[in-house]
């Protein structure tokens, strides 16, 4: 059966879809700079938790390759979100927070910053694929590459660590 929407139904559907989309992005878009920094810190903490767990497998043989694949997929999703977590006005000089070490260079060289975020996206995708294969040495190598070329490529130029 061919379902046909009336014009008003279509308007309604479009409007509610837009509302849902709006609600989804709301936490980032409507957040104050301080809230964004907080969300960013929580997200990075999650990311760190995944990396820590993957290290447990890659370096110490804990957990499973399947778990690594799932976590690498989560990192991949977070990586895609990173640029939205660093809007202008949330740098270390604007939002004074003992743990906000986002350097002003991010917004002076946004292209380079995006490249670093993209690199994490690509590296984590590779890790997820490699983890699917189950080869432990390859997983360890891919994991270290996520750290160095993903996390590190951004933290090195754009982040200073203010506290332990």
């Amino acid at each position, binding site marked *: 059966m061919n379902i046909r929407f009336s014009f008003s139904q279509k308007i309604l559907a479009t409007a509610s879809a837009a509302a849902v989309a709006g609600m989804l992005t709301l936490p980032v878009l409507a957040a104050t700079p301080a809230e964004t920094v907080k969300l960013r810190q929580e997200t*990075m*903490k999650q*990311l*760190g*938790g*995944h*990396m*820590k*767990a993957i*290290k447990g497998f890659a*370096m110490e043989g804990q957990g499973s390759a399947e778990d690594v694949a799932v976590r690498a997929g989560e990192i991949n999703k977070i990586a895609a979100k990173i640029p939205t977590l660093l809007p202008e006005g949330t740098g270390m000089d604007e939002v*004074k927070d*003992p743990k906000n*070490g986002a350097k002003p260079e991010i917004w002076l060289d946004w292209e380079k910053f995006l490249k670093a975020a993209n690199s994490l996206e690509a590296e984590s995708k590779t890790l997820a694929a490699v983890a699917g294969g189950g080869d432990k040495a390859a997983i360890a190598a891919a994991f*270290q590459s996520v*750290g*160095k070329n993903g*996390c*590190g490529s*951004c*933290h*090195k*130029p*754009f*982040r*200073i*660590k*203010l*506290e*332990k």
Partner: protein
Amino acid sequence: MLRRGLLLAALLAPLAAATAQEAGQAAADEAASRRGEYVFHAAGCYGCHTDVKGKGAPLAGGRRLKTPFGDFLGPNITPDPDHGIGSWTLADFTRALREGVSPAGDPYYPAFPYTSFSRMAEEDIADLWAYLQTVEPADTENGAHELDFPFGWRWLTSIWRTLYFAPGEFEAGDPLAAVAKEDRDKWNRGAYLVRVLGHCGECHTPRGGLGAMDEGLFLAGSKQGAEGAPVPNVTPDPATGIGDWSLADIEGYLKFGMDPDGDFAGGAMAEVINHTTGKLTPEDRRAIAVFLKSLPAMERKITRPSG
């Protein structure tokens, strides 16, 4: 026929010996330069002597080091005779590292960490020298330091040296009782890597008003290190230092930059991991970890300088 062959052999023998000797010398030089390359990594020379941001040639100088006294510019240490150290002798080089004095006799600013390098082993200096001979010469001119008043007066450095510079030999110490028995042989190597070659204290130890390291707070962190950024306390205090890190945590961090929370190093330490600690042998990283864990724990919270 046989006699002619013997004659020929007799004639050629000294030549062959000379060639063998040359080959032996070349092999020795190569071995020295290979060992020197490792010393070069362990001593972290690349960072301050290469202008990566300005796409300068390796070791050709020009890297800006921001300090509370002004900006220092790392000099060219390639073998270029005019702008680098191509006209130096090994004796000049040794004096620069151990005494902090240029071949012309001028004292260096302690931004060049001769306060640490002074205790470098003789053979490490010779190997490093051999390695630096193999670097591509670059004719990059040295820029002048841009220092705040009155630090531009280099003669002040002489007074500073009288007050704070104690040259000397590295002395192997007694490993503290806290060090596990199987790790005691590593402790001295770790002390040498941390205190001398790696010159870790230059950033991780706080400095007094005149820029001298406060040895009583060795590695307890600095609110304003090089580049103006705070530098963490790496003594084994569990709350404010790295007391809650295991030896393996420290080794892993030094290898590829990940701390026990899954966070990755940034800023100056990422450079150190890329160019120095990441290039060391696992044994040397272990030695550093053993030494760090043996230090007196100092409770000292490091926060950013501007609050």
